[in-house]
């Protein structure tokens, strides 16, 4: 029985209510797109054109948090979606193929169009291609090159993505029956940039001791810049959260009652066990940041004076902050090490929890290199756990507890 809990942000409650409302509204909103939220500018642009956007990836997290991943993954596997496939996809197809119709928040209605982008993992393309066939609806795919080594976006990448965006916009205008206006694009680019600013601000505030937010707060709030990107509504939610967090900092209010250790978490958290942070809170451990929340999503400041360029750059920035796709290259080429060194210092980190997640190969590749880097270079204790982000069937509490306890004993919190 956990006695210590993360002090939840009030603004997180507002956000939860907003998410519920969004899931209700999609039932009466047409046209509806299903999309991926990996800094995908097609989402921002679709919304301007009056196309509503829902995210099966995010819905998979919702189902997982409600402990339905076992059911959905099993159904998907029975239809030959292999267990090696990312559990978000298995959750999504399990949900679609389930016969009983009892789904969290009533489910998400069928899409009129599918949107995807190739800036993330290959699944974004294959998954959405499978959905295209399943629903027999058009797929609009923004094709972007992957950036592994270059820190400046090469001009020809930018030109290519802008051209790609123009082609996608043309398709989306036809689907929506609306024309894109310069004013709306400027507004969306402005909101997108401002949201980035507030997200960075939130992370910056979490460098404070005691940390005003725990990983669970950040994992909830990331919904805004990822899924409500380019909207005034999303910006307002982030501003509200930032004001509350600022207030906590002023009043020296920490997310957990007695902060004694500050840990960094690597990889996607297990959504069915987000309360794992409370087990750590009981031992005085808070997570001021995680690689997933700091390096994966676009957190750079991208100029918005030319909206098309802003969105093209944003699409090209996904995962380029490290983690995602770039993990192994960055670790081996020590860029990750340098940035991590700075973050470990700035966030006053004194230990790490590294999840190895068989669903997300991209996030997990290099995980053990990072473990080694942290042990050897920073001389900090590391806990490696084996947890899938969204397949609860693979979770073994006894095994995880054994690792947690040993880690707590190592850091003097027996």
């Amino acid at each position, binding site marked *: 029985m956990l006695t210590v809990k993360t002090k939840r942000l009030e603004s997180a409650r507002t956000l939860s209510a907003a998410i519920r409302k969004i899931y209700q509204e999609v039932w009466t909103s047409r046209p509806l797109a299903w999309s991926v939220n990996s800094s995908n500018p097609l989402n921002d642009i679709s919304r301007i054109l009056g196309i509503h956007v829902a995210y099966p990836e995010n819905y998979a997290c919702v189902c997982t948090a409600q402990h339905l991943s076992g059911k959905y993954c099993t159904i998907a596997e029975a239809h030959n979606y292999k267990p090696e496939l990312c559990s978000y996809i298995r959750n999504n197809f399990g949900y679609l193929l389930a016969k009983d119709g009892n789904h969290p928040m009533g489910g998400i209605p069928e899409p009129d169009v599918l949107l995807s982008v190739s800036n993330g993992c290959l699944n974004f393309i294959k998954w959405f291609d499978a959905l295209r066939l399943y629903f027999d609806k058009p797929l609009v795919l923004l094709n972007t090159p992957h950036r592994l080594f270059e820190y400046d976006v090469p001009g020809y990448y930018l030109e290519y993505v802008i051209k790609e965006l123009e082609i996608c916009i043309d398709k989306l205008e036809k689907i929506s029956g609306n024309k894109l206006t310069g004013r709306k694009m400027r507004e969306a680019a402005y909101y997108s940039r401002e949201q980035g600013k507030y997200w960075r601000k939130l992370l910056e505030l979490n460098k404070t001791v005691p940390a005003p937010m725990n990983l669970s707060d950040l994992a909830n709030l990331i919904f805004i810049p990822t899924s409500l990107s380019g909207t005034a509504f999303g910006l307002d939610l982030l501003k509200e959260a930032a004001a509350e967090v600022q207030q906590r900092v002023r009043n020296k209010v920490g997310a957990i009652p007695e902060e004694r250790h500050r840990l960094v978490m690597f990889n996607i958290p297990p959504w069915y066990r987000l309360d794992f942070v409370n087990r750590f809170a009981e031992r005085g451990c808070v997570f001021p940041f995680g690689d997933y929340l700091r390096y994966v999503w676009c957190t750079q400041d991208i100029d918005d004076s030319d909206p098309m360029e802003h969105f093209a750059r944003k699409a090209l920035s996904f995962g380029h902050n490290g983690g995602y796709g770039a993990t192994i290259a960055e670790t081996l080429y020590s860029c990750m090490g340098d940035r991590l060194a700075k973050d470990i210092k700035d966030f006053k980190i004194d230990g790490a929890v590294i999840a190895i997640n068989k669903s997300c190969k991209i996030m997990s590749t290099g995980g*053990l290199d990072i473990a*080694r880097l942290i042990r*050897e270079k920073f001389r900090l204790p590391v806990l490696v756990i084996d947890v899938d982000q969204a397949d609860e069937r693979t979770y073994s509490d006894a095994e995880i507890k054994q*690792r947690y*306890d*040993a880690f707590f*004993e*190592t850091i003097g919190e027996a």
Partner: protein
Amino acid sequence: MALFAGVDSGSTSTKAVLLDEGGIIIGTHLVPSGNNFRKSAEVVLHTVMDKTHSKRDDLAAIVTTGYGRFISGLNSKAMSEITCCGRGAHYLHSAVRTVIDIGGQDSKAIKIDGTGKVVQFSLNDKCAAGTGRFLERIAVSLELDLERMAGLSVQSQQKLPISSTCVVFAETEVISRISNGEAIEGIIKGLHSALASRIHILAVGLNIEKDILVCGGGAKNAGLVKEIEELLGEVVLPSGIDPRFVPSIGAALIARDSQREQVESKPGESQ
């Protein structure tokens, strides 16, 4: 005289170690865990007390460890096997800096400092292929006991590669090699090598230092130890005691420490 007990409720067996105030091991006992951790913990403790003609009233503190540590029903403090293993290994051989514990349920590589305190550790992932269960399962399908398997492996000049990624696949591979008429000694050596390679992965990730002590049920298997030595260099084995008792020795030592701490934190109170 005050006594201290360490009880390790493991997946296969439950072990108890009894220490006196001077930290000398005065008794050990081991029983199969069965499906009732509470009962096996009680039985093992009872038996070790009986064997050493000790009185329950003399038992000053108990520490439980292993998977069943929270349900042992003993009036005890629970500690993880990793911490206990580190302490136990240091007690047996103070130059140890790395402990490789090969249990039924999991395998661990533990880096300790000069006092036996855990510095880093890594455990096998969810697959049983990195644990003692791997050999147990295959021993059943070969209709051999583990000791016999160890003997055959040590004798073999040949090592036939066996997949180390999955117990079920390895078992299929073993059966198919046998039906091809390949030498059983070579197959068993290949199996030990496959398990050793999984343990090697755990150890190198920690950048381990010498001396390396191998404990747990796996340490009783000379064939496996030989394969581990091929990958990690020379290792030491617990001397004069069954290697499965290392975590319970650590647990008993921690029980003794906790008693001392209590005494120190209550100055003026006599013991």
